[in-house]
């Protein structure tokens, strides 16, 4: 198995190196780069592999040709979630996409788009009942829950990926695909998106900074930089000046559920905070987040800020988004995870220009690739067709643009400088296909760029992803089904304290020990031990020290 795997990867890499010189260079620079590093290793097998890859390419062509000749196109159902539910243009876009897939691989596609609230429920029911849904994004349904319930097809069964997903292999580094392996089996294909996040980003409207006379312009390291790198003490100074100038507004707020994940350089292995890597870049030791220095420091800082009056008294029960509050004039500054293009994004959302500060490093967690991969339903009748559609979604710019942005002339038109934007009379509210979830749609990197973002945004994104500090546990997936009883208890205890501690409503020096005691009683130690054991096994199997 392992040998086969290595061969396969080597094949992919070799191919990429060859293709890398061609026209698609900008699409997979990372893959090409990493390929160079690793070709030496695979040099011996390279020739053989290229030959094999060519064979496999033929298999894909043959399958497509056969379908096109027969004239009966199998239908592949593609499901994903958005925020507003099934868009009006869904059938039209399905049909437009089918035109491309019919011509290229002899397959029809049908979209199923559900809103975030019901997606998990609906997908679970559809997958359990055996309804047709071939390709789907596991976001919100959960990758490990899907694997545990056996919903997902082994993508390397009968060389499915190698034969029919060659462009997918090209689009990723092996490490990225490995992020979707569980015990060596590949269950998903990651999305091309921002894999890293700038930790502890703070967004403050420019007008407010000007009003208090804060000189942010000189703080940029280089001219034309998007972000200002600084520390929390500086932010504290800014916030207290803003608080003085605007005591009627809340000075600062953070979305409750993302504080640890977007502020601290800890790797919440498997996505839960019960047993984390407190020093993720260097060590694979699973330690307690809550007794760790970083968490304590954060809580103390927030407690101080709360005492200084930065938070609204309603912060604990806030259900509105941060930018909505800023727009309404109720909030001054908020935390955000940064990435290339963030300044433009937040400015759009707030309805005024903002300045983005960043107090932590760019960091890539071990869950970066498996929170929302695409997968094939184990129940799928024609996995070859499904894989070929997926392959096309990752490699065909026209199809990717249709999938992400809709139809040219209806949902978007080209601008003079090569961007795309709404046609006249169309906006986000009345557009028939404007999902705003391109981070979930396979490969937005090859789709057209919407007005407002730089045309080079995806190159920058790729660079950002590559250069961010990465957790050592990259590629590890955590299956907690054996300790699910402990998990439910822990989740309930943490939920009780989370908001109060992390928004500084209670004194962490008193309350953190209390919480830790209750977590221990709920089985924290057992849970952490199980996590550590799984991590060690994975490290041993993958040769990581």
């Amino acid at each position, binding site marked *: 198995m392992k040998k086969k795997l290595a061969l396969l990867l080597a094949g992919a890499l070799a191919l990429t190196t060859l293709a890398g010189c061609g026209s698609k260079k900008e699409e997979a620079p990372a893959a090409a780069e990493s390929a160079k590093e690793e070709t030496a290793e695979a040099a011996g097998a390279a020739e053989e592999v290229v030959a094999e890859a060519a064979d496999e390419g033929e298999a894909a062509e043959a399958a497509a040709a056969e379908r096109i000749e027969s004239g009966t196109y199998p239908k592949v159902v593609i499901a994903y979630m958005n925020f507003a539910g099934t868009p009006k243009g869904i059938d039209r876009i399905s049909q437009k996409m089918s035109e491309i897939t019919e011509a290229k691989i002899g397959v029809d596609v049908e979209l199923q788009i559900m809103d975030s609230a019901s997606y998990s429920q609906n997908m679970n029911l559809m997958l359990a009942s055996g309804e047709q849904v071939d390709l789907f994004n596991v976001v919100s349904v*959960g990758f490990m829950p899907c694997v545990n319930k056996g919903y997902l097809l082994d993508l390397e069964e009968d060389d499915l990926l190698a034969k029919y997903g060659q462009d997918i292999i090209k689009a990723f580094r092996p490490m990225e695909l490995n992020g979707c392996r569980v015990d060596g089996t590949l269950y998903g294909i990651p999305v091309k998106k921002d894999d890293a996040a700038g930790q502890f980003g703070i967004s403050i409207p420019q007008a407010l900074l000007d009003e208090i006379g804060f000189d942010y312009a000189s703080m940029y390291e280089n001219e034309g930089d998007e972000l200002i790198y600084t520390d929390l003490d500086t932010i504290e100074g800014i916030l207290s000046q803003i608080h003085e100038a605007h005591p009627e507004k809340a000075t600062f707020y953070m979305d409750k559920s993302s504080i640890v994940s977007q502020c601290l350089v800890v790797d919440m292995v498997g996505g839960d905070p019960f047993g984390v890597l407190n020093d993720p870049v260097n060590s694979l030791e699973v330690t307690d987040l809550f007794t760790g220095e970083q968490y304590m420091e954060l809580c103390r800082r927030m407690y101080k800020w709360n005492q200084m009056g930065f938070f609204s008294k309603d912060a*604990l029960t806030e259900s509105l988004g941060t930018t909505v509050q800023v727009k309404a004039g109720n909030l001054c500054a908020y935390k955000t995870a940064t990435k290339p293009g963030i300044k433009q994004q937040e400015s759009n959302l707030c309805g005024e220009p903002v300045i983005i500060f960043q107090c932590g490093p760019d960091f890539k967690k071990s869950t970066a690739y498996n929170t929302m991969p695409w997968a094939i339903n184990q129940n799928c009748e024609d996995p070859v067709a499904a894989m070929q559609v997926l392959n096309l979604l990752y490699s065909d710019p026209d199809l990717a643009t249709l999938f992400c942005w809709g139809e040219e002339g209806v949902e978007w038109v080209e601008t003079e400088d090569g961007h795309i934007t709404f046609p006249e009379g169309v906006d986000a509210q009345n557009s028939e296909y404007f999902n705003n979830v391109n981070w979930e749609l396979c490969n937005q990197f090859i789709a057209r760029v919407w007005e407002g973002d730089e045309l080079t945004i995806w190159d920058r994104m790729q660079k950002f992803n590559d250069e961010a500090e990465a957790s050592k546990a990259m590629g590890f997936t955590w299956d907690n089904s054996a300790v*699910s009883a402990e998990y439910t*208890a822990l989740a309930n*205890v943490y*939920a*009780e304290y989370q908001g109060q501690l992390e928004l500084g409503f209670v004194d962490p020096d008193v309350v953190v020990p209390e919480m830790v005691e*209750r977590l221990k009683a709920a089985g924290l130690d057992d849970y952490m031990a199980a996590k550590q054991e799984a991590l060690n096994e994975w490290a041993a199997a993958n040769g990581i020290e």
Partner: protein
Amino acid sequence: MASNKYKEKMSPAKRKSLIRRSIPIYLMALPGLIYLFINNYMPMPGIILAFKNYKAKDGIYGSKWAGFKNFKYLFSTQDAFVITRNTICYNLVFIVVNLVAAVAVAIILSELVGKQKKFYQSVILLPYLLSAVIISYLVFAFLSPENGFVNNSILKPLGKEGISWYQEKKYWPFILVFVNLWKGIGYNCIIYLSTIIGFDRGLYEAASIDGATKWQQITKITLPLLRPTIIMLTMMAVGRIFYSDFGLFYQVPQNSGALYSVTNTIDTYVYRGLLELGDITMSAAAGVYQSLVGFILVLSANLAVRKFDPDSALF
């Protein structure tokens, strides 16, 4: 048992007439029985999902047995006591408070004269029509620490310090009981009201002629006549004693962590625990647990009722 004996003693002619009379009745019952079969009994075997280690490939019935593993999380935690206590205690209080209030309002409404009673009746039903989330917004309008009514328009003018309502758990048992009552009173009283309206007015007129006061009429005529309805509704509520209104305990306190020890019930616990796990077998296990307790309670309550008031028994 009793009906069997009765049947044995019947003459053939009588039995024939009984059968003739019964056939149309069975026909009437048929559509409802079929619906219950489709809606409730066909999926019923799915209960075994709670005892399975579900794998999609093998389906619900083909998956391996897991014994009671899926139930473990309901009992193995320190919170098991708190959530069980909360669920039962709130339900007991709700049953009593709602019963007293609904019967009282129904009696008042049935005795009032004048057009305004129609107005009362419509208005008190309205809260029932709001979804839990909207109710949580309204409660928040009153209790928000920053902008809320109680803090700003009541406590402040009185010169009192505002209260951080969503962090102070001592108030919440009362708030929840009140909200529950507020929401349900109009709906709950309807059933009693329609029952009272069906009573024979002649009884009241006779009593009035005999010089009975209003209070006597209520205690001597209305309440005794209402007894079967009260018993039946209470028994049905007892069957749901392990269930809680998720919206009331999750949305209305705004999922505030500080209040968990008085707002966490079986349903909210399961929800929070399974939010990320998304485990259908574990949630099925919670359902089986709740049903089973309810079933046992209803069976025993029914047994007791059958002893002293056979006509009011459920079955």
